[in-house]
């Protein structure tokens, strides 16, 4: 059919870009002068273009892609991906445990010291440095003895009676201890500077806590740390704490 002697396969090789440079040149010249071969080349080009979609005829499913990826994914990195959060979590838990243990040890120490002061006061035959139910007597007594000032609420007409006060040491820091009677119970109020190192041992965060059957409430205000401790009922401890907060507030 073709009058031209040019080999069709040579044309294909030319289109594949696989003809040696010298032959490529002569082929180009031939194509310019041979309409038959030019038509053949055009037809082959259009066939090839039409065949391109065969490249994307079959697309793998997302499922299969995942499966294969999992098959060849670096095993170690899979492990690491899982291990990292676990390792971090474990470390965090350990750290928390250490901190918590340390904190609770400090809390325990702080509490024990406060409790010891309260108990020694209860046991003492001579529990007060200043014996007075008058807050205007007790408060001035502490002047010059402690490096801070505090206010004593008016107990007259309340369930509490001021028994007296004394100078104590809490964490090697001077502190004021007031003894307050509530019915037949005695309650200790301890006040010390927050900078005395008790801060790290913050025992409780608001409200009354129960430690060793003592009811304790503590808070910090304007650089002073307050402890109210005693075997009186929790409500009484809390009311006394509120009375103190009322006169030593803002």
């Amino acid at each position, binding site marked *: 059919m073709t009058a031209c002697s040019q080999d069709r396969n040579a044309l294909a090789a030319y289109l594949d870009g696989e003809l040696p440079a010298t032959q490529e040149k002569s082929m180009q010249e031939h194509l310019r002068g041979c309409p038959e071969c030019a038509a053949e080349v055009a037809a082959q080009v259009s066939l090839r273009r039409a065949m391109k979609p065969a490249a994307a005829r079959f697309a793998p499913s997302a499922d*299969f892609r995942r499966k294969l990826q999992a098959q060849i994914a*670096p095993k*170690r990195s899979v492990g690491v991906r899982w291990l990292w959060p676990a390792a971090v979590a474990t470390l965090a838990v350990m750290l928390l445990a250490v901190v918590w243990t340390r904190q609770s040890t400090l809390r325990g120490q702080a509490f024990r010291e406060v409790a010891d002061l309260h108990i020694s006061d209860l046991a003492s035959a001579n529990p007060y440095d200043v014996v007075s139910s008058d807050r205007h007597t007790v408060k001035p007594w502490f002047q010059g003895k402690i490096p801070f000032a505090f206010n004593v609420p008016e107990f007259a007409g309340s369930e509490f009676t001021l028994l007296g006060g004394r100078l104590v040491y809490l964490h090697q820091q001077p502190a004021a201890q007031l003894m307050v009677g509530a019915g037949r119970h005695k309650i200790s109020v301890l006040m010390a500077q927050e900078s005395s190192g008790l801060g790290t041992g913050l025992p409780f965060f608001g409200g009354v806590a129960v430690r060793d059957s003592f009811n304790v409430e503590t808070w910090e205000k304007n650089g002073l740390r307050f402890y109210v401790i005693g075997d009186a009922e929790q409500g009484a401890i809390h009311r006394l704490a509120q009375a103190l907060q009322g006169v030593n507030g803002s």
Partner: protein
Amino acid sequence: MDRAFFEQLAMPLFDQLYNHACWLTGDRADAEDLVQETYAKALKGFASFAEGTNLRAWMFRILRNAFLNSRSGLKQKTDYLEDEETGADEAVAHEVTPEALFLASESQEAIFSALERLPVAHREIILLCDVDEMSYREIAQVLDVPAGTVMSRLARARTNLRAALGAKEAVR
């Protein structure tokens, strides 16, 4: 033996390999098995794979060998043996004019079905050359044959395809 490095190099070939496997087997499940086997073998042999050589040709070759050893491949193996003798329908192909070829290339369906009807050896080489756009050298690596064989087989395959397209055209 760096899996991450292998993943980085081999994953971009995933779609191409899967598509090729589908064309070879004509079945998606078989193609998935083939691709999986290919990646498993390539990963195993990656240590011996010399950097700088053609990874694509290497993986296509693994895929091809896996196919030839698979059930669906064994069924079609005779095609490969026959390939060398099939004179194709030179005469028919010659009668398919450029104009007829032009017309045929307008129907994608006709082209796909003609490709499907080709012996697997011919379908394979046409896909490697025209669809995956491999050089004769690359194709020779994939098929593990000399470059001359690539040229002659490709010529036979194209004649065959042309005849198939012409036949389709004649049926109309």
